[in-house]
């Protein structure tokens, strides 16, 4: 007897469709977007003869075509692990400082599709920043938060960015970053890192903070780690290599630490422990 299972529900470019059992991804392409030349099934490129199963997610892309706003979310996240985007697009993340760490973290989280980023920094883009920070020659002289906001909107206009061009102090941190469910510490100076963490933790003791310490120089990337150093404090870095005369800050290792931080944020949003596989 043939029951309801001879049909299957498939999401194509984030819209629900019903197809007969064993329909191939190529047949779906022919019916919904015949000019698509990139087929993605459950986050992974697929060849057209692949038969689909109930619940599969299919993304059909025409290379070179700029999608409409409604389709963009689905297409930007086509290579995500399914289910991730729904969780993180409702999230608000605060990033304090958008230099080498913060600019790279903001870009990673924007590509991941977080809903709302609050970025705060008093600084201006200078030529000496370009060895490691995610800015461009034509942005020299602009406040970093505004330059970064422009860059982020070119990647993913669906991410809401609140850009605060100001110096964070104990008196304004609660107001500026109060909506952040996870705080990213991305300052340069050790004293400022400590001030931010103490202030935020005093007001919001239950919210996680992801901090960076020890990413100068060109020592092994493998010494940069994510550690839980306090109840709600995760530290990314080697913990000891300071920026100092003779030990500069450079794009590779700063980038490693920044992406440790971004990954820790993503894991926290998904309810995972940033430092281990255990939930």
């Amino acid at each position: 007897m043939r029951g309801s299972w001879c049909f299957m529900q498939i999401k194509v470019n984030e819209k629900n469709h019903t197809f007969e059992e064993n329909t191939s991804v190529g047949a779906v392409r022919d019916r919904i977007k015949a000019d698509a030349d990139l087929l993605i099934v459950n986050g992974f490129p697929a060849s057209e003869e692949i038969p689909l199963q109930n619940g599969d997610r299919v993304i059909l892309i025409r290379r070179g075509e700029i999608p409409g706003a409604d389709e963009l979310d689905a297409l930007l996240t086509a290579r995500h692990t399914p289910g991730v985007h729904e969780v993180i697009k409702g999230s608000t993340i605060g990033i304090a400082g958008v230099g080498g760490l913060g600019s790279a973290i903001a870009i990673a989280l924007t590509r991941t599709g977080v809903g709302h980023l609050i970025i705060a920094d008093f600084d201006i883009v200078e030529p000496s920043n370009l060895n490691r920070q995610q800015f461009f020659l034509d942005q020299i002289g602009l406040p970093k938060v505004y330059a970064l906001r422009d860059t982020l909107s070119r990647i993913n206009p669906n991410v809401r960015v609140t850009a605060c061009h100001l110096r964070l102090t104990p008196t304004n941190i609660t107001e500026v970053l109060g909506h952040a469910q996870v705080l990213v510490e991305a300052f340069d100076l050790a004293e400022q890192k400590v001030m931010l963490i103490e202030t935020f933790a005093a007001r919001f003791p239950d919210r996680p903070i992801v901090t960076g310490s020890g990413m100068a120089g060109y020592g092994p990337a493998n010494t940069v780690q994510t550690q839980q150093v306090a109840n709600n404090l995760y530290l990314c870095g080697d913990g000891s290599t300071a920026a100092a005369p003779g030990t500069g800050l450079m794009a590779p290792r700063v980038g490693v630490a920044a992406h440790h931080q971004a990954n820790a944020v993503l894991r926290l949003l998904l309810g995972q422990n940033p430092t281990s596989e255990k939930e």
Partner: protein
Amino acid sequence: MEIIFNGKPRETQDSISVQEFLNQLQLDCMQVVVEHNRSIIARQRLDETLLNHGDTLEVIHFVGGG
């Protein structure tokens, strides 16, 4: 008395404040975050916060760069 300092048992005198404990270790308070019994404490409270037997104290040292 004994406290747990950065995960390890450590002997210290009775009724000592967190600030005095940090001073004995010659730690720069401007570059450390202090967690006392799983709560981060602000530097204004380091002086008034007294350590008791069995307390846990984590001192996280920060270096510059970002």
